[in-house]
């Protein structure tokens, strides 16, 4: 079993409404996988199940051959799954650097007492985290705005910061929820390059929800299509583009009388 992530036929229900049903998703190391579907198809619900926000009503989720079904979100992050959000959720009272430094808190080895007493162990750790975060910011070209408030950044950079913040938790699997939302074609091209760059550099596996078809078709190796919570199709971008069921879900049924 060398999959990074397997969702073993998971389902989610909200008061009788079946948001996701019987989804079997397999993600292999170093892949970039797309998860697409019309609005309300249950894509974000899948993310919320993988990251532990919801517990699936049926099925199991395996990450690195550990069963992570029902673990709390912070434990799952600790195991190595990081995520971004559809609507940006930065810490708005903090600077760019502080936003990234938060992600290092879960890798701490010192305790609160050592922090209060300014013990060398804590100080060394803090300096090390600071250096790591600055390096990370430099790699993604955000180092020059490290001391600015996160919310004062332009939209595209806020999106990138959210990804960096997720990267700082040292994940193996990165879940991106509509990273290109609200971006113009130029910005989404940049983002595509950025995602493949970090994938190679940090040895990541990426699972992303996206509506921009250019982005999805451009960088994803495989695509899962969801509609009303059901997995319609899975395959390479060209297979998906020519899949009748997918076209039907997106554009409506072809009128047979015409």
């Amino acid at each position, binding site marked *: 079993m060398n999959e990074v992530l397997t969702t073993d036929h998971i389902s989610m229900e909200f008061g009788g409404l079946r948001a996701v049903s019987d989804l079997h998703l397999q993600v292999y190391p170093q892949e970039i996988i797309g998860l697409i579907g019309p609005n309300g198809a249950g894509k974000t619900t899948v993310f919320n199940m993988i990251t532990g926000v919801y517990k699936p009503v049926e099925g199991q989720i395996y990450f690195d051959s550990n069963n992570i079904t029902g673990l709390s979100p*912070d434990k799952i992050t600790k195991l190595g799954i990081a995520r971004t959000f559809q609507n940006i959720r930065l810490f708005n*009272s903090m600077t760019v650097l502080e936003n990234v430094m*938060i992600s290092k808190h*879960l890798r701490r080895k010192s305790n609160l007492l050592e922090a209060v007493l*300014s013990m060398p162990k804590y100080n060394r750790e803090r300096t090390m985290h600071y250096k790591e975060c600055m390096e990370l910011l430099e790699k993604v070209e955000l180092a020059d705005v490290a001391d600015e408030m996160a919310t004062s950044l332009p939209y595209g950079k806020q999106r990138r910061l959210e990804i960096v913040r997720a990267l700082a938790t040292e994940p193996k699997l990165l879940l991106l929820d509509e990273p290109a939302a609200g971006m113009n074609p130029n910005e989404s091209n940049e983002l595509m390059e950025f995602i493949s760059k970090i994938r190679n550099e940090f040895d990541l596996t990426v699972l992303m929800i996206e509506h921009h078809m250019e982005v999805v078709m451009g960088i994803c190796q495989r695509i899962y299509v969801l509609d009303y919570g059901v997995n319609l199709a899975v395959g390479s971008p060209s297979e998906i583009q020519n899949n009748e069921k997918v076209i039907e879900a997106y554009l409506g049924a072809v009128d047979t009388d015409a």
Partner: protein
Amino acid sequence: MDDKKQIKFILNIAVLALICVFLWWGNDNLSSFYIRILNLSAIFVILGISMNLVLGFTGMFSLGHSGFMCIGAYVASILTMSPASKEIIYFMEPITPILAQIQWPIFPAIIMAGVVAALFGFLVGIPALRLRDDYLAIATLGFAEIIRIIVTNTITITNGALGLKNIPSVKSMWVYWGIAIITIIILKKIVNSSWGYSFKAIRDNEIAAEAMGINLFSHKLLSFSIGAFFAGIAGALMAFLITSVDPTMFRFTFTFQILLIVVLGGMGSLTGSVISAVAITILMEVLRVVEEPINFFGLLQIPGLPGMRMVIFALGLLLVILYYRQGLMGTREFNWDYILNKIDSFRKRGASM
């Protein structure tokens, strides 16, 4: 950069030394009335910043501070009262034999008061912190009242509604301000540590904080218990200052007085809470004038109205909430950098002229 750090370190030491000189001078030269007010403001400083940690930094709308203070006050009093006075005071029902002979020195009793209050904070926090916002406020308010009612009814331990008297009196400003300054330093360290940032992350966005690997419940519980610890210490100091405690002292109106300090000073600013704690405690005394009968040039006569002070504070709070919501300091802190930069630019302007 290193140079600046050194300057700041020296400045910090200088300010501490200045405060020490003032305390040393004040202890001998100020009248006991002034010393009492200053000691009271030290207690409110501790209360203000510890509540700010919970309310301003972690974003938990908790109103249970007076309950934890009550616990601290009783623990410290029972531990330090002499066996003889315990025998006299507990005349309704004698005190439980285990506590009758105990007489601890002041400092261990203060620490113990904090520890017991923190323990109660921990126990109260486990159920209460599953709630948030207004619901948390109501639950913690309820818990504070429950603590007060338990204290009123456990007569063999707390002497019930009669309260405790003859608690050893501590007058020295060293004790009150010393502990207040240590509290400020500890809380500043916490707030600037990665734990402090995690608290702020929880305040800013719980969902994102959890996704970044912060365990919400344990961090909230930690912040809440630290808040309770210092509230307990402040309660102990309160007992030593007034030398008598009874359950009615710790009604929820007391919590609102601390809330006033936190809101006026700025939620999320230790500096703001320190300034507003001192200012409000002093104003409380200064404004006693308005409660006396006032005569406007023989035209208008206002009889003395007890409680007028609180009306003024209420109006002040209203104005702050309507027009200046972030309070005195907002989330900013006192920082030497700001002053050093000012001096620097002033000097440069002087040189260019």
